[in-house]
């Protein structure tokens, strides 16, 4: 019996591969298994290979598996393209329609079963149900009951018609029976039962959208872009229910400036984008910094530069997010690592943005934003709404008519109370031009220095809570440092290395600005060797650590930038390799 299993379905884009993966994953999630599902897709709508790699586990996992146990193929390309991932003894179940064959580069003992998915689907009503037939065949291999997906199908089609549900279930049964008729049983591929806990099943972007609702967001101006669009699409459905609205803007410049206008006028507002849109937002980001307007920007990183790899994973926007916009402004940059944290970090982002009155960017990566994953139930008690420093109406009443409210009053912590237009006694001016306390342009030398210090001082010396998490030995031989979705693969590599008796640690960075110099520095001090693992070509996190004055004599950068996220085995091998290297 397996505690976890890795399964993949593949075929041509537009053929229902996504919904096959979704039905499979959701059904198992409902049974209490933990799912991590990562889609391979291309920037085209129909045609082209696509697949969904699903990890099913009795414990929570945040990464795809290194190997594959079961491959479900709707075309030969799927077998040729993914066959090398199969472990020895793995199983391929393919549609008999295309006369599948195993390629030469496949592991020993991989067995191919050719099942007439399409034909059986046609016999049961319609060829589009070939996916259901395939799921039935899989169920048999994994030792699941053929009605494992009944609840999911009921909730998906039940409202439309019971007939559709029944037809689909019949197709699943047909696939199950056909597989059984092959006369082979697969006890080594049977899944251990799950504890029937209730988990959420969602993508990171859903967690961000939900977090935004919980944080009281009412407005989202945004321009569609992969892999950010889901946040917008989720909120388009939900915001009207709370009296809010999504505006599909003409571009990202409009998206961010509209966000600034709405935040200035008192609404909690966010926008979401990816690399190309982030570049367009740079000038406006400076306006938010200069005018001390709290805005929340979601940047879901994809492969760059330029249009780059729109549907592939990368972590290469960190420099742009941190150092982008001309001039110098304070910025908060949060980098969640899991779907749960996408929720909490979004809630935090609004509180920080309003507390420090500066742009706050939540940076994710494609794997985190788009992987469908099981998540522990979100904790409502986590949600607090802190609107930061707001002017006291009693003080506003004291503003002499004809005088302006000091929106940029100098205070001990640099944060000045806000008012919203429409408030009595709050008249003031806001500008991206250097200004005085009431917001009037002021180019004076002393004023500029004082105002720069005020704005930048808001984050000086600040280390936000939980900005670095740590697992592993207190004084590790090798310390792994990562950010974003590599939390999963690094964490799992750590587990395996520890099981192998090695002394390792994993420090994960959850806040890129203000940079957790102390929290990370403390971990680096205790390590003999440091490896910074990240998904970009130039080692942006590696250099950021050094930029902040942290150094280590044995510090190396480990980068991957082929468009796919790390899997645990890669990190594991890297650590083993560098330990041998180091001992020499």
């Amino acid at each position, binding site marked *: 019996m397996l505690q976890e299993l890795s399964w993949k379905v593949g075929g041509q884009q537009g053929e229902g591969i996504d919904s096959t993966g979704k039905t499979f994953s*959701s059904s198992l999630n409902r049974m209490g298994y933990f799912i991590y599902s990562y889609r391979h897709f291309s920037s085209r709508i129909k045609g082209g290979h696509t697949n969904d790699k699903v990890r099913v586990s009795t414990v929570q996992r945040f990464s795809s598996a290194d190997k594959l146990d079961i491959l479900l193929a709707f075309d030969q390309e799927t077998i040729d393209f993914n066959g090398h991932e199969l472990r020895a003894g793995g199983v391929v179940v393919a549609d008999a329609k295309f006369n599948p064959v195993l390629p030469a580069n496949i592991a020993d003992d991989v067995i191919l079963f050719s099942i007439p998915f399409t034909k059986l689907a046609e016999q049961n009503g319609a060829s589009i149900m070939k996916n259901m037939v395939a799921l039935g065949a899989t169920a048999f291999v994994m030792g699941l009951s053929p009605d494992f997906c009944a609840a999911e199908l009921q909730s998906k089609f039940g409202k439309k018609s019971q007939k559709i549900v029944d037809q689909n279930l019949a197709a699943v049964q047909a696939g199950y029976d056909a597989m059984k008729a092959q006369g082979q049983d697969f006890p080594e591929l049977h899944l251990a039962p799950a504890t029937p806990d209730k988990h*959420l*099943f*969602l993508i990171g972007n859903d967690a961000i959208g*939900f977090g935004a*609702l*919980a944080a*009281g967001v*009412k*407005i989202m*101006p945004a321009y569609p872009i992969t892999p950010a669009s889901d946040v917008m699409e989720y909120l388009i459905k*939900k915001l*009207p*229910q*709370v*009296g*809010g*609205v999504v*505006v599909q*803007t*003409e*571009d990202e*410049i*409009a*998206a961010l*400036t*509209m*966000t*600034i*206008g*709405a935040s*200035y*006028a*008192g*609404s909690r*507002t966010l926008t979401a984008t990816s690399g190309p849109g982030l570049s367009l937002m740079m*000038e*406006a980001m400076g*306006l938010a910094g200069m005018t001390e307007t709290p805005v929340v920007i979601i940047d879901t990183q994809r492969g760059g530069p330029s249009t780059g790899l729109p549907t592939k994973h990368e972590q290469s926007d960190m420099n742009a997010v941190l150092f982008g916009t001309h001039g110098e402004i304070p910025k908060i940059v949060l980098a969640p690592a899991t779907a749960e944290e996408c929720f909490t970090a979004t809630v935090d982002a609004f509180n920080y943005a309003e507390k420090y009155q500066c742009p706050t960017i939540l940076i994710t990566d494609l794997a985190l934003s788009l992987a469908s994953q099981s*998540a522990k*139930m979100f904790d*409502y008690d986590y*949600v607090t*709404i802190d*609107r930061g420093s707001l002017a006291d109406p009693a003080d506003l009443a004291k503003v002499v008519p004809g005088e302006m409210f000091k929106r940029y009053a100098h205070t001990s912590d640099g944060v000045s109370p806000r008012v*919203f*237009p*429409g408030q009595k*006694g*709050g*008249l*003031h*001016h*806001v*500008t*991206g*031009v250097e200004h005085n306390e009431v*917001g*009037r*342009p002021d180019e004076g030398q002393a004023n500029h220095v004082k105002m720069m210090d005020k704005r930048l001082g808001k984050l000086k010396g600040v280390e936000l809570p939980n900005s670095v998490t740590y697992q592993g030995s207190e004084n590790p031989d090798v310390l792994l440092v990562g950010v974003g979705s590599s939390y999963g693969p690094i964490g799992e590599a750590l587990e395996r290395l520890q099981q192998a008796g090695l002394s390792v640690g994993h420090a994960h960075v959850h806040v890129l600005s203000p940079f957790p110099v102390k929290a990370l520095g403390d971990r680096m001090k205790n390590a003999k060797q440091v490896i910074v693992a990240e998904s970009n070509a130039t080692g942006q996190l590696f250099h950021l650590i050094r930029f902040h004055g942290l150094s280590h004599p044995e510090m190396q950068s480990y980068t991957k930038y082929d468009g796919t996220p790390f899997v645990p085995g890669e990190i594991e091998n890297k650590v083993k390799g560098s330990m041998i290297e180091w001992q020499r």
Partner: protein
Amino acid sequence: MAILADFKAEKPTWCPGCGDFGVLNALQRASVELGLDPEEMVVVSGIGCSGKLSAYFGSYGLHSIHGRSLPTAQGVKLANRELTVLAAGGDGDGFGIGLGHFIHAMRRNIDITYLVMDNHIYGLTTGQTSPTSDAGMITKTAPTGAVEEPVHPLHLALVTGCGFVAQGFSGDIVQLATIVKRAIAHKGFSFVNIFSPCVTYNKQNTYEFYKSHVKKVEDDPTYDAGNRFAALERVTEANALLTGVLYEGDRVTFEDGHAKYSTKGLATQEHTLSDDDYVKLLADFR
């Protein structure tokens, strides 16, 4: 009730005689005559000499970035529909770098008023060609005369479906104030293009030029401001040298088109989800 002095703020630094004084004046008058409260108004401006308007007008003011007054102003209005929101800027700001936003603001039809101080030149950057500079005009960046066809803002507005299209002249503050009043009162996006001479860098489009060339539609009893296509024809015939309300019609605003969208300002509304909503929303994720 607010008086003229309430709408005054800092003393303008425009060149003496700059057309933008007239625009500021007309806006102040219109605001008084409409009985507006400066604390319930926001003027969002772009960058340019014209963009300084927000600092000189006595309401809440937001000086945005070059070309982006419109999306910023739309954001303000969305956050609080109870406010009177204006966007203001120059011809370069609105028809050059910000032209895309202009078209989309008209499509979107959020209830704000847009004042463009069209001096056919880049004032603040000291005299370069603007998108409305006449063909042949000699400027710093067109020493042998501009060769590009100018942008035609009134035509653009009329064909884009803008619900309120007007043109004024800062040499006629009385007419301009009347136009601005109607523009603010109009429900939906309203656009007022204003001939606002730059006395320093544009020796071609001067007060004298406009005084002798511009015709007021109020003086023409045959002018029908309720007919978009007729307006297009008249504007074309007059080489756009017409002032007054050129077109006004009814269109559903963005705000009203989103039936569930809050009619009250969002700043002070409940931000916390109810337990019930929280549970219901999470039930989607299975």
